[in-house]
């Protein structure tokens, strides 16, 4: 058991730190959260810089440990988030890399890495959330195209995306997991309507996407027709791997800020609150160690994170909510003020136990795949 960097890892870390220190002061100011074109340009610009510096494919080709160092160091340095590049870099890109043809990889991967194209995700539907395989958006073959009709929900960056990784039903007669196909849909195709979806935090981070007879070339299909579920599973296991590593680092920082605030406003003298902060400190230390443990396991097996990602996701999502509930306890009545720094974070933390597989689904996955309990439901 070794937590220290190998010489190669230490060299990578040192180079990255040096580069971040040089490049971050020259970044343009962050756009406001509701300026979607501005956010797109900012996020793509950051990806372009990463690409030019040789860090573009750190999410794909680098070893899991190198990826973890990248996420740790960029977060510690306060570098921009992956933002609008999220689906391209962490969902669609890896799927195309794993399952696409040479031609498809050549068409779609370089623009993702160079920060030229934005992808969004068309998976969930109003009637298919946790039971994603129940999706009903229909694709009917017409010559060299699929004609797609249906609706998707919880689509981030749909307003500014160039492509959508889309799951459609191509065989309504087959068992639900078998009749699904994975398509890359150009977002400028006729028949697509994007409607912003306002969340309880007041902002429109997501959108609904309505599809009315949208024509998608058959050449845009990744994997075989009706094999989209298997293709998709490759993507989802990426999501539960190191996707939250940077956030754990960020939560540790927030925890430090809570301690500062509590000492400033006197609530630090409340032993119950102090111990709650102490316990959270333990929690986030442990979550970082769990990340390292999972990454080392992935490194050793060369595999995707699998069910251990569910263990992490489950624990982390609840810890994040406890962090911001504790922030509210530190703030006292000020926790009701939307202009205080942690109030919106507390609201958005509520999505963590729901998005990317609810806590209940994660429990199911762990019970079935790790503990070998019989399939229930």
């Amino acid at each position, binding site marked *: 058991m070794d937590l220290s960097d190998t010489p190669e890892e230490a060299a990578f870390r040192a180079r990255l730190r040096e580069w971040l220190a040089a490049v971050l002061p020259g970044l343009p100011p962050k756009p406001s959260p509701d300026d979607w074109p501005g956010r797109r340009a900012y996020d793509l610009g950051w990806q372009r810089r990463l690409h030019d510096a040789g860090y573009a494919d750190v999410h794909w080709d680098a070893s899991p440990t190198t990826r973890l160092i990248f996420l740790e160091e960029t977060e510690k340095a306060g570098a921009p988030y992956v933002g609008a590049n999220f689906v391209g870099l962490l969902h669609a890109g890896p799927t195309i890399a794993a399952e696409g043809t040479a031609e498809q990889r050549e068409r779609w991967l370089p623009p993702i890495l160079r920060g030229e194209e934005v992808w969004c995700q068309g998976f969930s539907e109003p009637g298919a959330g946790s039971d994603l395989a129940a999706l009903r958006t229909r694709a009917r073959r017409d010559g060299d195209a699929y004609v797609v009709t249906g609706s998707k929900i919880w689509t981030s960056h749909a307003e500014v995306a160039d492509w959508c990784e889309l799951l459609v039903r191509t065989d309504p007669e087959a068992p639900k997991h078998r009749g699904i196909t994975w398509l890359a849909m150009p977002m400028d195709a006729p028949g697509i309507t994007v409607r912003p979806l306002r969340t309880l935090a007041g902002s429109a981070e997501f959108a609904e996407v309505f599809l009315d007879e949208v024509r998608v070339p058959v050449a845009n299909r990744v994997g075989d027709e009706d094999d989209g579920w298997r293709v998709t599973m490759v993507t989802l296991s990426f999501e539960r791997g190191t996707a939250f590593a940077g956030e754990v680092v960020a939560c540790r920082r927030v*925890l430090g800020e809570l301690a500062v605030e509590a000492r400033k406003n006197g609530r630090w003298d409340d032993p119950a609150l102090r111990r709650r902060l*102490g316990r959270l400190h333990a929690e986030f*230390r442990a979550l970082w160690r769990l990340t390292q*443990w999972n990454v080392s396991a992935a490194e050793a097996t060369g595999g995707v994170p699998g069910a251990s990602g569910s263990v992490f996701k489950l624990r982390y999502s609840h810890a994040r909510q406890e962090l911001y509930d504790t922030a509210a306890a530190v703030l006292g009545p000020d926790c009701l003020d939307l202009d205080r720094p942690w109030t919106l974070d507390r609201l958005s933390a509520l999505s963590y136990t729901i998005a990317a597989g609810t806590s209940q689904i994660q*429990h199911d996955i762990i019970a079935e795949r790790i503990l070998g*309990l019989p399939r*229930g*439901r």
Partner: protein
Amino acid sequence: MRFRLTDDQRALREGVREVFARRFDGEALRAAVDRADGAGAGSGSEGRGAVPGAGDGADGSGPGGGAQHAAGGGSVLGDGAGRFGSGGGRPAEGPGGAGGVRAARVDRGLWRDLGELGFFALRLPESEGGVGLGLPEAVLVFAEAGRMLLPGPLVATHLAAGAVPGAATGETVVAAVDGGLVEWLAEADVVRGDATGAVALRSIDPLTPLHRVPARRAAADPVAILLTAAEQLGTATRVCELAAQHARAREQFGRPVGAFQAVAHLCAGILVRVETARAAVHAAAVTGDPADIAAARLLADEAAVRGARDCLQVHGGMGFTWESEVHLHLKRAWVRTQRAGGVTESEELLAAALASETA
């Protein structure tokens, strides 16, 4: 970074697990509990020679059977486990004697076998006759001991190796005063700390006799906290296995109860706490950082206590019986939460660490 067990560490864990399973199996555990069962408040007052008069049904371990331990010498944990194999017997009793109040006893044969295995001398340098391994290995071995509910002052004797003659070899049983409690006081040859005024209490854990002493504040040894956390991790691991086994096997309404989400999710929750605690305990063993150790303790305490509680719940009525093994894990886990200042001290340490980070 290579935060996973090395091949040697894996072999050590598997070897120790095998040896413990042979040397202190479920039957031996049951026999030890039966012997200790009914121990009164004054249980510690009898002489060491006294041996329970009844309930020693296990073969080869009757009163007067004498200590049995592995033949041969020299080989220790570092060479791969398996030293216990040649003995093959059940936990042995000391020399026979008149019965008295039945009480949990340190099995001297087991203790010497642990000594020979290198359990106590694990971290002593080889130049001092030790195994020369470190905290990561100690944590693995203590987790296995916790998993099997191995009775006796394991941490205190381990920490005394090199300082108290005979501790390293298991010839000497060492107890230690910890806050307001002493475990295994009457069974110890050497007691570290001031046990003046010790009063026996009727211990909730049949396999951990306890004395109350006037509480004195003393800084807890981080290594003692870490090894306790390792034992808790072992308990948590075991109750996770037991819960899942039961959920797969026990049928109600025509289905294994594990097919019901309410039950399955309890089991999954146990596993999540185990895995989180494992990462924290192993990392603390690598860094030795007091804040990492305090974190490991909090996570491992939670994993063990809540795990045992949920395991009991999964077992339903069976879990509430004396016959079930589940209550023994819960009670031992409760005992361990009282060590080294308890949870509060670790929480305060971590809060203070947070404050000093941002000062």
